[in-house]
C-alpha cells in the first residue's frame, strides 16, 4: 500500500478570525448601535453576511488613556470606529519616533540563523506542519492577546507641545490607510481611560462598504476631508497659508480619480495587447491647453509626456506628492501679458488619485503667499530648448543620465511602482547566481525570485517583488495573509493564513508572486482534505527576518545587483553611473 500523503486542513476565508475572542454577545451589541443598526442585512451577499463580517473581521479593543492606537507612518490594514470614550489625533508637530515605541520587526535569532547552514538539504518548498497550522506561533501577528500596547509616557507634555484634535464615539478613522494602502497619516491615542474601539480589518470594511451605501458615502466624505486636511498641511506649496486661507483652498479643491482601483488586471490586458504606450492612457491634462489648475498627485502615478513626431515621448513620471502645472500658472501669474499654455501632457498610469487646485485659487491665495524667491522661474516657450520637466522624482538631468529608452522602458512596464526593485546591471553581472543562492539560503533553501526579467540596455529588472508603493497584490486577499510589515513596510505573506487562492499572484502586474505546492520535510507534497495539493503564495520578503538586509544585494560580488527605490529615479541614475 502506498504511503498516505501528508494532509492538513485547507485554510478558509474565516479560518483565522480577526479576533477569536469575539462573542455572539459582542456581535449583538454591535448590531444594536449605529452605523450597524442602520444597515440592512438583506443587502449583504450570502457568503458574507453582516453578522459574520462583524464576527470575523472586527475586534473590540480597549485602550487606557495615553495608549497609542495608530501610529503615523505605519502601514495599517484596518480602520477604527470609536464605540465609547474619546481619542485624540496628533496634528502638529509629529511625535518623535521614540515616543511611538517603534521597534524593529522580529529578526531571526542566533539559533535560527545558524540553522540555515544546513538548509541546503531541505527539499524544495518544504514546511514544518506546525508552520502551516492556523494560529500557530507565526499567526500571532494578528492575535490580539499578544499585542503590545504602547502608551505615551508624558501625556500632559504631549498635549502641551502638540496640537491635537478630539474624536468621539461614532467617529471613524484609519480608513485612509486601510483602504488606500497608504501609511497612516497620523498618530491617534486614547484620550479617556476607557476608550473602546472597534477595529475593522480592511477586508471587512470593504465588504461593509460594498453592501451599505450610507456607510460608503459617509466614509468617502470623512476620508476625503481627513485626507485633504492632513495632506494640504504637509504640502510645501501651502506652508505660508494661514488656517483660514487653507480652509478656503480646501473648500475649492477638486478631486479626480483616473484608472481603476484594481488596475493590475487592466494593465495585464494592456501589456498583452502590446500596450503601455502613452496614447492609450487616460489624459489628465493635455499639452497646449490652458492650465486650469495645479495638479497634486495624491496616490498612484502619472506620466509626463511631450509630443514628439507622431507620438509622444515620456519625459518623466510623477508619483504621490508631486505637482504638475505650477510652472505655467506661476508664469502666467507673473507675466499676465505673455501667458503660456501647458508645456506637457499628464496621463494617469493605472490608478491615479489627484487633487486639482484651480487657477484662480492659485492666483488669489496661494501664489501671493509665496516669497519671490520661491516662485518657479519664468518659462520661455519660444526658445528652442524646452524647459526641464517639472520637478518630479526625476530631477533635471536624470532623464539624460538614465537615458530616454530606459525611462520609457521603466514607465511602460510600470516599474516606477517599486520601492525595492531588483535592478541588475548586465554589464557587471557574471550570471553566477550567488544572489539566488543567497536568497535560497535565507529562505529555507527556496529562492524567492527569478534572476530573469525584462531588459533594457544593460539594465535588467529581475522578477522579484518590488515592494510597490501601490501594492495591488494586497487587494483581494481574503484572509489578509499578504500584508505590510508595520515598521518598514515590506509586503510579506504569512504562509500560515495563505489559502492559496492565487488572488495576489493574479493581481501582481509583474508576476512576482509564485504559487508553489508545499511539501513536508520529507519532500512529499502536502494535500488538503479535498485531496488537492496545498499551494501557497510566495515572493521576496526583502529578508525582513534576516540580519543585514536583502541577502541578494549583499551577496553580489560585483555590485551588479541592487534593490532600488524606483519611486525616485535619482537613486537609479546614481547607481547606473556608479
Amino acid at each position, binding site marked *: 500500500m502506498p504511503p498516505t500523503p501528508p494532509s492538513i486542513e485547507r485554510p478558509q476565508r474565516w479560518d483565522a478570525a480577526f479576533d477569536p475572542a469575539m462573542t455572539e454577545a459582542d456581535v449583538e451589541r454591535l448590531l444594536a448601535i449605529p452605523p450597524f443598526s442602520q444597515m440592512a442585512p438583506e443587502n449583504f451577499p450570502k457568503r458574507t453576511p453582516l453578522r459574520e463580517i462583524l464576527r470575523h473581521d472586527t475586534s473590540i479593543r480597549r485602550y487606557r488613556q495615553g495608549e497609542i492606537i495608530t501610529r503615523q507612518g505605519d502601514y495599517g490594514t484596518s480602520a477604527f470606529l470609536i464605540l465609547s470614550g474619546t481619542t485624540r489625533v496628533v496634528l502638529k508637530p509629529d511625535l518623535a519616533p521614540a515616543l511611538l515605541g517603534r521597534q524593529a520587526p522580529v529578526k531571526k535569532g542566533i539559533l535560527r540563523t545558524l540553522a540555515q547552514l544546513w538548509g541546503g538539504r531541505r*527539499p524544495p518548498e518544504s514546511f514544518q506542519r506546525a508552520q502551516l497550522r492556523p494560529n500557530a506561533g507565526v499567526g500571532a501577528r494578528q492575535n490580539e492577546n499578544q499585542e503590545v500596547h504602547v502608551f505615551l509616557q508624558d501625556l500632559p507634555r504631549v498635549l502641551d507641545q502638540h496640537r491635537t484634535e478630539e474624536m468621539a464615539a461614532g467617529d471613524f478613522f484609519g480608513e485612509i490607510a486601510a483602504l488606500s494602502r497608504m501609511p497612516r497619516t497620523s498618530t491617534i491615542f486614547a484620550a479617556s481611560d476607557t476608550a473602546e474601539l472597534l477595529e475593522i480589518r480592511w477586508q471587512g470594511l470593504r465588504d461593509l462598504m460594498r453592501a451599505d451605501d450610507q456607510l460608503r458615502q459617509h466614509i468617502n466624505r470623512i476620508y476625503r476631508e481627513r485626507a485633504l486636511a492632513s495632506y494640504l498641511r504637509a504640502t510645501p506649496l501651502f506652508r505660508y497659508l494661514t488656517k483660514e486661507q487653507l480652509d478656503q483652498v480646501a473648500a475649492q479643491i477638486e478631486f479626480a480619480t483616473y484608472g481603476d482601483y484594481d488596475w493590475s488586471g487592466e494593465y495585464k490586458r494592456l501589456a498583452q495587447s502590446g500596450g503601455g504606450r502613452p496614447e492609450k492612457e487616460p489624459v489628465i491634462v493635455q499639452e497646449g491647453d490652458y492650465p486650469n489648475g495645479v495638479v497634486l498627485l495624491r496616490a498612484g502615478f502619472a506620466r509626463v509626456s511631450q509630443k514628439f513626431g507622431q507620438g509622444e515621448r515620456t519625459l518623466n513620471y510623477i508619483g504621490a506628492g508631486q505637482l504638475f502645472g505650477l510652472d505655467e500658472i506661476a508664469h502666467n501669474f507673473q507675466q499676465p501679458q505673455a501667458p503660456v499654455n501647458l508645456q506637457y501632457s499628464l496621463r494617469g498610469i493605472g490608478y491615479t488619485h489627484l487633487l486639482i487646485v484651480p487657477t484662480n485659487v492659485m492666483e488669489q491665495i496661494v501664489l501671493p503667499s509665496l516669497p519671490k524667491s520661491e516662485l518657479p522661474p519664468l518659462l520661455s516657450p519660444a526658445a528652442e530648448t524646452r524647459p526641464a520637466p517639472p520637478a518630479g522624482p526625476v530631477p533635471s538631468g536624470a532623464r539624460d543620465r538614465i537615458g530616454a529608452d530606459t525611462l520609457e522602458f521603466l514607465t511602460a512596464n510600470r516599474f516606477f511602482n517599486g520601492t525595492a526593485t531588483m535592478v541588475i546591471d548586465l554589464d557587471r553581472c557574471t550570471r553566477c547566481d550567488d544572489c539566488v543562492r543567497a536568497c535560497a539560503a535565507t529562505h529555507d533553501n527556496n*529562492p524567492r525570485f527569478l534572476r530573469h526579467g525584462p531588459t533594457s540596455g544593460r539594465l535588467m529588472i529581475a522578477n522579484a517583488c518590488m515592494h510597490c508603493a501601490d501594492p495591488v497584490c494586497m487587494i483581494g486577499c481574503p484572509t489578509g495573509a499578504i500584508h505590510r510589515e508595520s515598521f518598514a513596510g515590506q509586503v510579506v505573506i504569512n504562509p500560515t493564513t495563505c489559502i492559496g487562492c492565487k488572488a495576489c499572484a493574479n493581481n501582481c502586474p509583474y508576476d512576482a508572486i509564485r504559487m*508553489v505546492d508545499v511539501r513536508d520535510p520529507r519532500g512529499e507534497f502536502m*494535500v488538503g482534505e479535498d485531496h488537492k495539493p496545498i499551494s501557497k503564495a510566495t515572493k521576496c520578503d526583502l529578508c525582513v527576518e534576516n540580519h543585514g538586509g536583502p541577502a541578494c544585494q549583499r551577496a553580489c560580488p560585483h555590485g551588479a545587483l541592487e534593490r532600488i527605490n524606483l519611486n525616485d529615479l535619482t537613486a537609479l541614475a546614481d547607481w547606473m553611473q556608479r
Partner: protein
Amino acid sequence: MSEQLPAPGFDAQSYERPNQGWICGHAGEGKPCRLGPDHRGRCCATAECTPVLEIKPGETKGRWRCTRSGGVCESGPRPDGSCCRPIARCSPVPTLRTRRGQLTRAVVAATVALLLIGLGGSWRGTFINSGALSTPHSSAAFALLHSGTNQANQTCTACHPAGARGPSDLVATAWAATPGPFQLGQLARARPGEPTALDASCQKCHPNHRLHQPSVVRDLSCSFCHAEHRGTGPMAAPTDAHCTICHGDAGVMAAAAIKGASLPPASESALAAGSMPSSALKRTETATDSRTATGFTQVIHSFAQDHPEFRVHTDKLVDPDTLKFNHARHLTSETIPQLPGGRKLDCNSCHQPDVAGSYFRRINFERHCQVCHSLQFDPETPALTLPHGNPALVSAFLHSLPRQYADLAARSGITRTAEQNQFAQEKLQRWQTRVATGETFEQRVFFSTATTGPSVQVGSVIGATHPPYPGCAYCHEVQAGAQGQPEITKPILLDRWLVHGAFNHAKHSGVACLKCHSAATSQATADVILPTKDSCVTCHSPRGGVVDSCATCHGYHRKDTK
C-alpha cells in the same frame, strides 16, 4: 520570432533553483518532473500523485482518491492504491557547480595522496629537499659515512633528526622547535646568528672547529653564515653582514674586549700559517704583544670606513733583518750592471712568486744574489770566487789559497802540475805585493766594507760586469768571535708581515709593484715597505669599485685544530 534568444518559459508554480546541485534528467527535454532529485542527486520520481484512502463514515474499505496536481486524472488510482501514471525515472544531471565540488574533492584527495606518496616512500629525501646540497654534503663519501649507502638523498638524518620521522612525529617535532611555529614573538625578537639545534649536527663532523677568537662573546650558529641547500658547488661565502653583526656592534666589541682582557695573551693566536712569532720583531718602541684596553679590534663596518691602519704602520715596526740591502739602489742606480741576457734588474728579478702565486719565494743567495754578487775577491782573477754560506769554509778557502789557484788553473786547461803550481805561485806573489800579511788579507775579506781607499784593493774589480766585493761585511753583519774568528749573524728573512689577513699578489699582477711598495725610495733594510690601508682603499672601497668585503682578506675560523 525576432528575438535574440527563445523565450525562456518559466513555470509559474516554481522558481529556478540554481541553489540545487542536481537537475532532473528530463529537464534537458524541457519536461522536468515535479518532484526533482534530492540534494544527493538521487531521482525521487515515483508517480504523478500519491493517492489517499478516503473512508467515509459507515464504510469499511474506503476509496482511493487521486491527489494529482493540476486536476484528477481520468483513470484514477489503481485498486491497490498506487497511482496509475508512474513518472519515468531519470539520471539527475549535476550542475556545473556540483561538478566543481566533485573536482575539488578529487583534487584534495589527489593532493593528500600525492603528498603521502611523496613523504612516505624513498622519494622523500628528494621530494622535500628544499634545494641541492653543496658538493661536500652531497658527495658519495658523505652518504656512505652517514647512511651506509651511496644515495645522497638518504642522508637527511645526518643533519635533520626529523628526517626519519613519521607524520605525527613530524608535527610533534615542528611543534617542539625552538622557537616554535606559534612563538611569533620569539621569531620576531630573536637575535641574528643564535645557535640552533641544527648546529649540533654540524659539529658531529666538524668537531673542535673553533669558531673565532676566544674573546668572542657569543657563539654564532653555523647556518648563520653557511647556507646549505643553495645548490651544488661550495657553500656560498659569508658576507660582510655576517661579520658586522658583531664587529659593527660597539656593545659586542666592548664585551669581547673585556672578555679578551681576561684571557692569556698567547690564546690570541695568529690565524695564518708561516708567520714569524712576533717576538722575533725588533721594535723601535717598547711595544709589547699585550692587547690595548679596547682590544685589538674596534668597531668595523667596512674596510674603507673604519678599518684601522695596519699595525705594521701604527706600531712603526721595522724589519729586523741584519743583511744590508738598499732597494732604491738596486732599482734605480745607474751603475747597476745589466743581468746576463741584457735584462735590467727589477722587482721580479729577485721576488719570484711561490707556487700558488699569492706570495713570494724566500730570497736566496744562490738564486737571487749570486748572479751579480759572485764573491770574486781577486780583481785579477775574477774566475775564482769565495764560497758562501759558512765563515769557516771561507777561512779554510783562504788558508788553502795556493791549492785553489792551482785548481783554477787545472779547470782553465793547464794540465801539467808544474805549470799549475807556477800559476798559483805567481798569483800569490801578486797578493803579497798588495797585502801585508795573510792575516790582514783574511781580515779584509771578512770585515771590509770599503769600496774606495786602500782596502778597495781587496775584491774590487773596477769596470767589471760584477759589482765589487769589498768584504762579507758589505752585506752581512760580521762580528769577531770569542777566538777572534769571524762570525756572520744569520739573516732574518720574514715571509709575511700582515699575518692576520690574506693577500694574493697574483690577483694584483695588473698593478705595478711600486704603486704599493715604496721600494724605489727605500734605502734602509729596516724599512717595511708595505702599503698603508689608504693605498688599499684606493681600489678596495665602494668608490674604487673593487671588492672590499671582510672575507677578501680575513678568514673566520681558527686553523689551529687543537
